[in-house]
């Protein structure tokens, strides 16, 4: 118990230190932009990891909620005339509502049927965004008004580095909190054995739905943050490939590991930036690295490495 608490504070402290130190070694604003992208992706992945790693329910359409968050802050101020911060809340609310409405029937499905249903949901949302160009600018995307909070215009890659870093810290804190609570235990229990969870009184459908809604809100907030940060948004953010990227971050980093999602995001977001020096070989190498790391670290980077260290420490 105490060890667990310490581990939680330690994780948060290390993360805070990393976020605080990086600016001293970053040579240009480009680095701030990439790092912010990592923080945002990690935030979405941590949410998805609550659904996939804790509650054991796969979602291949999670970018839909990312897209809803992103487009809410783009559309809200322009078409509805509401302030940016309200649009952010509206997006999170819409994502939660959608997850709540479709979650019950979808989460009754298991395994690959759940995968295709969530995938279908993601494709549908992305299609609506691409098609309703009067609102969304269609396939070309649309610009996003800068966020203004209490008269402070939040802009610049340096500012956004801190904002997204702060969001990630809060998101990490909440995800770590959840672990050792009745809710978190119910998630992990239904992951291991639904029937055993049921007979001790866990309302499996309710908790799956809770995990789905939490994950949707995380993704939505991450989407809004990215939209503000970039000042521009296009349908790719809601598309299937982005869903796959989020799942890959979660699995690559380690299912069920909060730190894993951050490490996974760092690897998968910075890798293509590094690989651009290889020009046309970029995708080839990206695919290769995903395959090789999944073969040799099948439970994910962080769980594999930490069990390796533990074994070393013991011997």
């Amino acid at each position, binding site marked *: 118990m105490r060890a667990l608490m310490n581990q939680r504070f330690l994780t948060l402290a290390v993360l805070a230190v990393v976020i605080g130190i990086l600016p001293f070694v970053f040579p240009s604003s480009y680095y701030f932009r990439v790092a912010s992208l990592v923080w945002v992706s990690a935030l979405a992945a941590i949410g998805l990891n609550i659904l*996939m790693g804790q509650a054991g329910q*796969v979602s291949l359409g999670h970018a839909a909620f990312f897209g809803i968050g992103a487009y809410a802050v783009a559309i809200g101020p322009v078409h509805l005339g509401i302030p940016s911060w309200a649009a952010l809340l509206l997006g999170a609310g819409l994502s939660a509502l959608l997850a709540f409405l479709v979650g019950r*029937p*979808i989460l*009754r*499905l*298991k*395994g*690959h*049927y759940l*995968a*295709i*249903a969530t*995938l*279908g*949901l993601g*494709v*549908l949302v992305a*299609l*609506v965004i691409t*098609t309703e160009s009067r609102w969304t600018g269609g396939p070309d995307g649309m610009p996003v008004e800068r966020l203004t909070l209490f008269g402070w215009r939040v802009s610049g890659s340096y500012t956004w580095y801190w904002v997204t870093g702060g969001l990630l810290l809060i998101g990490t804190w909440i995800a770590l909190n959840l672990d050792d609570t009745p809710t978190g235990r119910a998630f992990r229990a239904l992951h291991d054995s639904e*029937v055993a969870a049921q007979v001790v009184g866990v309302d499996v459908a309710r908790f799956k739905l809770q995990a789905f809604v939490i994950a949707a809100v995380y993704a939505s907030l991450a989407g809004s943050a990215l939209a503000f940060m970039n000042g521009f948004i296009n349908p790719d953010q809601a598309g*299937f*490939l982005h869903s*796959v990227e989020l*799942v*890959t971050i979660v*699995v*690559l980093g380690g*299912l069920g590991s909060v730190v894993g999602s951050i490490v996974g995001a760092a690897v998968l977001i910075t890798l293509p930036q590094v690989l651009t020096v290889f020009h*046309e*070989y*970029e*995708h*080839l*190498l*990206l*695919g*290769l*690295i*995903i*395959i090789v790391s*999944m*073969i040799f670290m*099948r*439970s994910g980077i962080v769980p594999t490495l930490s069990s390796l260290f533990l074994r070393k420490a013991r011997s």
Partner: protein
Amino acid sequence: MAEFLQFLISGLTVGAVYALVALGFTLIYNASGVVNFAQGEFVMLGGMVTVFASALGVPLPLAALVAIVVAMVIGLLLHRLAIEPARGASAVTLIIITIGASILLRGLAAIVFDKQFHKLPAFTGDTPVDLLGAAIQPQSFWVLGGAAVVVLALYVFLEHTLLGKAVLATAANRLAARLVGINTTTIMALAFGGSAAIGAIAGILVTPITLTSYDVGTLLALKGFAAAMLGGMGNPVGAVVGGLLLGLLEAFGAGYLSSTYKDAFAFLVILIVLFAAPQGLFGRRVVERV
């Protein structure tokens, strides 16, 4: 009537391609339990290799054969180098591996070939055939006929050859199959090779109608996966019916309702079907044993 027939034929044509991709999914899934998201890449390879081989002056039938062989080799390599080493990993880990393979193959195709759209000439000319007032592309008949031949051949193989029965036995129960002396690793390799060939054939048949490029695989994999699930995962008949159904839905949806939401109908119907029948149309209802 003519319009209806037009939609029907074009729906069946597209549906036949989805059916072949779904069949490839099913074959691999049954033999190994892996959902192979690189399935669409086999279709892409079938089209692209044929295009580039015939551009080098190779006659079309020979170019098609080369394409099928190349796809099969890639399928076998995928099994040997990526799936086999990860044996025993969780389902979601294996899915990520096949997604990685799909990214890799797409990247490879972009380097070896290019990023342009390519077309193959129709096998027997472009003059539409008039069928009760509907103008049908002759290539449609090639696609439908080709798909029928593949399905029939697969059926004969599975039901009437010893090797085919070994595949079915492996699908039914991998451990039991191994216990009666079936080399399940060979069966899995066979499934990857076979489903790569089926994908490539689909790609060759459909390229004269839909064009091809290095990145056509993703959407095809999605539709094929959807078709397989619609029919009920692991059921070959379900895969074919699911594929044809998906094609028809798209064609009629696009024709009568809205062409911009063509892709939406398929997924909307899948969601509705799964809500009503969580095991797909032909899937068996399994009772959880505890």
